[in-house]
C-alpha cells in the first residue's frame, strides 16, 4: 500500500527507516569498516569534513557510511553534530608556512626554492578503468605499502619552503597586504552584507565543492577575470597551536590536513587610479585534500574582491550571491523541503487561479 499523505505519518517514518536499513544491509554481506572508508575513500572523507566544518576523519567516515555514501547527507550529519559541541578554545592564526608538506606546486615558475613536489596527484593519470581493483585483496594492499617503504630516501626533505608570493612581494609587485584580519566565527555571529573578507572565506571553506566549482568556472569562462595564475598550491598537515593551560604558551595540540591555494591576477590593482600595474591575490583553503575546492575558493575570493572594489559585473563578483548560495547543507535542505506537503499553499494557488479565470471569463 502506498504512502498516504493524510494519516499514518509515524508509521510511514518507521517504514522508511526500515527500508533504508534494508537497502544498506541488502546483500547480507560484510558491513563496511569505518576504518576502511577512512582510508580508501579518504578524499570523500576530506570533502565531508570540509563541508561539515569539523575535522574528524573517523566521524566523517561514519557519516558517509550512515548516509549510504551521499556526501551532502554525510556533511549534514557532521554539521549537526558540530553545532552543539562546546568550544574549548581558539587556535592562533597560522600563515601556512609551517605546513608539513605532502604536495606543493607553483604554476608561476618552472622551479621554486624548496622545489616542486608532485605528491599524490591524479592530475596526470589517464582516467581509464583499472579492472583489477574488482578482485584485489589485502595482499595487494600490503604489497603497495611495502613497495612504498622500500625505497624511502634517507635524506630528509628540505625544511625551507618559502612562499612563492613572498618572492613577488619582495620585488614590490603585490598589492599591499591588508592589516591583520580578525577571524570571525560565522556560526556564532550573524552578519549583514556587505560582510568582511574573513567572513566570506569562512563561508566558502564550508561551501559545497560542486557549487563553488560552478561559480568559479563561470569566472574562468569570461564572467570574471578569466585566467589567474596559481602562485602556489600546498597540501599538508597544519599544526594546531593551542595555548598551554598552565603556561599560556602556544603548544602543538595536533595537526589537520589542509589544502591551500594562492592565485594571482594582473592589472587588477585597486590601489589608486594611476599607479603602476600590480599583482592581486585570491586565497582558498579547506580541510583535507581538496584541490578543486581550494582553487575554486581562491577564484571566488578574487572575484568578490574585484566586485567589492569596482562593482560586481558578474554573479561571481557579487559577494552576496556567492556566499548565500554555496552552503551545500543549507541549499540541500531547502531544495529537499520542496518535497514536503505544500497542499495548503497549492490549494490557495488553485483557488486564486480559479477566481481570476472566472472573473476574466465574466469580463472580456
Amino acid at each position: 500500500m502506498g504512502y498516504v499523505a493524510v494519516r499514518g505519518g509515524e508509521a510511514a517514518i518507521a517504514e522508511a527507516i526500515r527500508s533504508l536499513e534494508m537497502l544498506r544491509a541488502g546483500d547480507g554481506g560484510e558491513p563496511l569498516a569505518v576504518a576502511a572508508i577512512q582510508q580508501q575513500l579518504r578524499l570523500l572523507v576530506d570533502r565531508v569534513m570540509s563541508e561539515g566544518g569539523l575535522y574528524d576523519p573517523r566521524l566523517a567516515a561514519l557519516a558517509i557510511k550512515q548516509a549510504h555514501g551521499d556526501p551532502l547527507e554525510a556533511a549534514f550529519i557532521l554539521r549537526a553534530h558540530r553545532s552543539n559541541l562546546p568550544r574549548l578554545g581558539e587556535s592562533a592564526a597560522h600563515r601556512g608556512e609551517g605546513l608539513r608538506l605532502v604536495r606543493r606546486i607553483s604554476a608561476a615558475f618552472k622551479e621554486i626554492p624548496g622545489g616542486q613536489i608532485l605528491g599524490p596527484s591524479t592530475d596526470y593519470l589517464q582516467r581509464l578503468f583499472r579492472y583489477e581493483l574488482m578482485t584485489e585483496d589485502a595482499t595487494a594492499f600490503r604489497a603497495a605499502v611495502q613497495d612504498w617503504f622500500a625505497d624511502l630516501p634517507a635524506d630528509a626533505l628540505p625544511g625551507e619552503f618559502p612562499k612563492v608570493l613572498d618572492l613577488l612581494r619582495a620585488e614590490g609587485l603585490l598589492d599591499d597586504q591588508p592589516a591583520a584580519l580578525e577571524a570571525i566565527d560565522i556560526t556564532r555571529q550573524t552578519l549583514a552584507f556587505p560582510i568582511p573578507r574573513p567572513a566570506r572565506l569562512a563561508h566558502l571553506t564550508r561551501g559545497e565543492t560542486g557549487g563553488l566549482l560552478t561559480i568559479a568556472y563561470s569566472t574562468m569562462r569570461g564572467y570574471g577575470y578569466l585566467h589567474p595564475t596559481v602562485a602556489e598550491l600546498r597540501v599538508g598537515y597544519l599544526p594546531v597551536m593551542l595555548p598551554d593551560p598552565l603556561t599560556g604558551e602556544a603548544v602543538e595540540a595536533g595537526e589537520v590536513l589542509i589544502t591551500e591555494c594562492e592565485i594571482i591576477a594582473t592589472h587588477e590593482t585597486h590601489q589608486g587610479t594611476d599607479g603602476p600595474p600590480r599583482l592581486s591575490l585570491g586565497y582558498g583553503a579547506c580541510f583535507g585534500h581538496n584541490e578543486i575546492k581550494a582553487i575554486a575558493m581562491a577564484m571566488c575570493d578574487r572575484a568578490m574582491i574585484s566586485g567589492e572594489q569596482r562593482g560586481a559585473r558578474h554573479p561571481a563578483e557579487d559577494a552576496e550571491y556567492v556566499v548565500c548560495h554555496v552552503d551545500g547543507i543549507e541549499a540541500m535542505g531547502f531544495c529537499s523541503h520542496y518535497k514536503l506537503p505544500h497542499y495548503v499553499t497549492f490549494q490557495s494557488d488553485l483557488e486564486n487561479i480559479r477566481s481570476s479565470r472566472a472573473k476574466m471569463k465574466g469580463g472580456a
Partner: protein
Amino acid sequence: MSQATTRAANPAADRFGFLDDFAVREIRRGLLKALAIPGYQVPYASREMPVARGFGTGGMQITLAIALPGDVLKVIDQGADDSVNAVALRRFITAACPELATTTSTAEATLIQTRHRTPERPLTARQLMVYQVPYPDPLQIVEPSEAKRRRMHAYGDYARLWVKLYEDVVRWHEVALSNRYPARVHGRYVIDPSPIPRWDLPKLHRSRAMHLFGAGREKKLYAVPPFTDVVPLAFDDVPFQVERFCDAAGRRHRCQTCGTDDTYLDEIPLPDGTRRWLCNDQDRCAERMSHGR
C-alpha cells in the same frame, strides 16, 4: 591492460588511435574547413577523453585524428619535453598509436603537439603544429556570451576588443595582454593564438608550417594555413613588442646554459633571492650546446 592498447591490439580495429571513426572523420573535416576559412572557429563534438579537460584534450584529439604511421611526434609543455603533462600526453598518444615514432628533436618531428610555446627553431613545410587551446575566442576577454561573440565575428566587429587595447594603453602605457595576444588572420578573423607568449606570435606569420588549434573543452577547431598573414592587433603608433628579458640596466639576460640571448627564457628564483635565466625551449638549448654555439 589499458583500453587504448586493447583497441590497438584488436585486429578488428580498422585504424590505430583511440578515437572512433566518426570522431576522426568529424575532426578531419573540421580541420579542412578551418584551413579553408583561416581563423574561423569551427564547432565540433569534442569527445570526452581519459585525460581531463584543460590538460590538452583538444590538441590530443587533433593529433589522434591526423597522426599516421610514419609520423614522428614531439610533445612539449612550456617548451619542455619532460614536463609532467607532456610526458603523460605522449604516453597516452603512443599507447593509442603504437606505430608512431617519438622524438624530442624539433628538427626531426613531423607532428608537434604543444602547450604554450611554438618551438624556437624555424619550422618547415613538412611540419604540423598542434596547439592545445583553453580559449579559442579572443573576444572572450570582453564578452562572456558565446552567442554574442559569434555575431561579432560574423560582422568583423572587433571594436570592443580595440577599445580594451585603447583603455590599456591609456592606463598602463602598454596593452595588458601578454600571452594569447589577439591577431588577425588573412585579414579577416581575429584569433586567440592559444597561450603562447608574444615572443612566439610572429612565428605564425607566413609560416612554412601548418598551425592547427584544438579547444577540447570549448569544442572548437581553427587553423592558420602556411604562408598566411597573421598580424597582432596593435595601433599603428603603439607597435607590438615581444618580451624583452632585460635587467634593470637594460641588458638582455642570457641563457646560463648555452649563452644565447635570442630565445624565450625561464626565470628561476633561487633561495638566495637571485634569479637564474635559462632557455625555455629545451631542445633548442640542447641543440646549441651540442653544436657549440
